């Protein structure tokens, strides 16, 4: 992962959040407050604007720019959560202009730690942790080089598997049992983030047809 790949990753996330804004709003509307798509779209648009506007010399600085853009523009819980993830990624990658597979995976573990310490969610709470945890575990568990294609599949299946869960965090938790039957929108946006990460690293990613979740 170098700076060009990183910027391409963020741009692609932004494009796909725009494309999936209505879907993510709808999922959120069923079990939360209905603005996850709009918030993510606004946040990543701001992030790409900031990347355009400032020269960067290190991956760490790029990550920090994205993290602060998300924190200051998203508005909902996903601002601090995704923002913390990118800030931790930036700390992990630091002054490098390019990182190898091992450093990519270590960075993602640091990002997951950031999400967990900010949101205090565990696996099974029907949150983005349900996607991040198994995906990062698979990447870190590889004996040789990480299997990015398998990681994308794990992320996609994990997002779909949040549908039957009962929410225990955020506004969806007020719904209790009524939160069952809908995929957690933060898990779906997380799976999209992983799809685009793998596209930026090795290309030829197989994207899930998320739009089919729309009613």
């Amino acid at each position, binding site marked *: 992962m170098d700076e060009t790949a990183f910027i391409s990753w963020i741009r692609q996330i932004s494009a796909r959040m725009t494309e999936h804004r209505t879907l993510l709003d709808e999922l959120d509307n069923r079990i939360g*407050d209905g603005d996850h798509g709009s918030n993510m779209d606004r946040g990543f648009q701001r992030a790409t604007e900031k990347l355009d506007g400032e020269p960067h010399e290190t991956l760490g600085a790029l990550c920090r720019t994205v993290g602060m853009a998300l*924190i200051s523009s998203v508005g909902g819980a996903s*601002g*601090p*959560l995704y923002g913390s993830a990118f800030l931790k990624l930036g700390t992990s990658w630091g002054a490098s202009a390019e990182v190898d597979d091992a450093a990519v995976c270590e960075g993602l573990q640091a990002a997951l730690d950031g999400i967990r310490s900010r*949101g205090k969610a565990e696996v099974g709470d029907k949150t983005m942790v349900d996607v991040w945890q198994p995906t990062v575990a698979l990447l870190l568990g590889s004996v040789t080089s990480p299997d990015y294609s398998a990681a994308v599949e794990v992320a996609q299946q994990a997002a779909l598997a949040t549908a039957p869960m009962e929410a225990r965090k*955020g506004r969806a938790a007020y719904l209790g049992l009524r939160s069952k039957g809908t995929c957690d929108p933060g898990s779906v946006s997380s799976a999209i983030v992983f799809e685009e990460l793998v596209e930026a690293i090795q290309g030829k990613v197989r994207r899930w047809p998320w739009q089919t979740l729309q009613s």
Partner: protein
Amino acid sequence: MANVAILIVSHSERLGEGLVELLEQLTLGKVHVKSASGIGGQLGTNPLQVAQAIEACPPANQIAVFCDVGSSIMSFETACDLLPDLDQSRARLVDAPLVEGAIAAAVEASLDADLESVVQAAMRAHGLRKLSQ
């Protein structure tokens, strides 16, 4: 000026400003009361705005912070991570109902109480009855 400032963090700019209006009337301007609510005219909270509001409190003040729901608390915690230690240590999130808690806190603060007394006063709002039984 009192020892404790009050900061409101709500998803709604109007809710935050409305509460500030109410608290200022109750405390006759003796307490620094501010809101860091909404984001760009929309519903939401902005950790940077919260961090700036904490920094802008009078240097001698401790700060009692009142949030509405869910991610406003996460925004406050994120704001603290962005602040220097000195500002972090003077702000305390209060586990109390937003309106009743902030009113109790503001009245206590206007009597020159310290942060601990202000927090205790706010937390008593949990058991406050509005109607006589």
